[in-house]
């Protein structure tokens, strides 16, 4: 009998597992998709991974690649700097919705407007999970969080942010913007792979938003977690590609 090993992507760091995310957290699945995409493209030796503040920073020892951890949303400009210093590298800015859309949104907007040749992966779980589940820019209307106990009131706090739609609107030709979901793993992996390939081809800004689960702060069991991400979230956050470089459509 051969020795049975866990089927982890080769780019994962096996010594830091089990990883630090909560049971049922979607970060593990997004990072699994990213790891498999890195393996399939064979670029592990030239990837630089930048993680943000929030739950996403728990991925600082996740991969066997060079990793930088920066402040809220600042992972985007740090990755832009690394890419400009050494264009041969493949840089991945990994952030949550709080870091990318609220506190550090100016960096995302400016990097997208300049069409920087980097890949951004933004994980959307509709709340600030690390600080206890407060309302985030992506909290859906009527959704209950710690700071919206009666549900998000759009009269008072506005509507949630639609990131890939915004990036698709402000970027120039050559950019890539898509939204995947951890409930559709193969699709998410395809989007992440296309985003990495778009960067490697030097076409432009590549942005993937990944809808993710947060059973700890949603206070859901496994069945309710799948129901929330597959039915409730996709109603407000449609999946798909919003901007594809010309000639690269499916």
């Amino acid at each position, binding site marked *: 009998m051969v020795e*049975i*090993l866990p*089927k982890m992507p080769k780019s994962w760091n096996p010594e830091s*597992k*089990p990883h630090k995310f909560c*049971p*049922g*957290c979607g970060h593990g699945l997004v990072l699994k998709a990213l790891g498999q995409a890195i393996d399939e493209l064979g670029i592990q030796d030239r990837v630089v991974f930048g993680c943000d503040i929030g739950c996403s920073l728990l991925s600082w020892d996740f991969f066997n690649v060079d990793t930088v951890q920066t402040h809220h949303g600042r992972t985007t400009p740090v990755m832009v700097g690394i890419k400009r210093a050494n264009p041969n590298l493949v840089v991945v800015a990994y952030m949550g919705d709080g870091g990318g859309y609220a506190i550090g949104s100016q960096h995302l907007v400016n990097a997208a407007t300049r069409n920087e040749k980097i890949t951004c992966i933004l994980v959307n779980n509709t709340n600030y999970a690390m600080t206890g589940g407060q309302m985030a820019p992506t909290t859906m209307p009527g959704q209950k969080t710690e700071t919206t106990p009666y549900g998000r009131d759009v009269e008072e706090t506005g509507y949630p942010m639609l990131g890939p739609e915004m990036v698709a609107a402000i970027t120039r030709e050559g950019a890539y913007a898509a939204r995947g979901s951890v409930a559709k793993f193969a699709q998410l992996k395809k989007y992440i792979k296309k985003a990495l390939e778009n960067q490697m081809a030097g076409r432009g800004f590549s942005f993937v938003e990944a809808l993710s689960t947060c059973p700890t702060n949603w206070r859901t069991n*496994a*069945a309710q977690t799948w129901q929330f991400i597959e039915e409730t979230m996709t109603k407000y956050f449609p999946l798909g590609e919003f901007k594809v470089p010309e000639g690269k459509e499916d």
Partner: protein
Amino acid sequence: MSTAAAPAYLKKVYTTEVNKGKAVFAIFPGLCKGCGLCKEKCPEGALSWSEKLGVYGTPTVTPDPELCKACGICERVCPDCAIAIIRVDKEK
């Protein structure tokens, strides 16, 4: 890196022969956090809570060998890579 001791989760693995012996369902209790995402995604309803405990002291899952078709959906949706489905090659 190569001199470091093997990670603790490799020490224990529970295997079950499924799909009429054509595949092996392996679960690593040192990785399983008991979230139950795999149990809900199983199209055959073959997974149930096990007596064996995972890394956080929560139950792991065990497959029903009669129902499991070794499709691999549980392996794919596991955020911790705690499940491995190994297809057994036919003897030639």
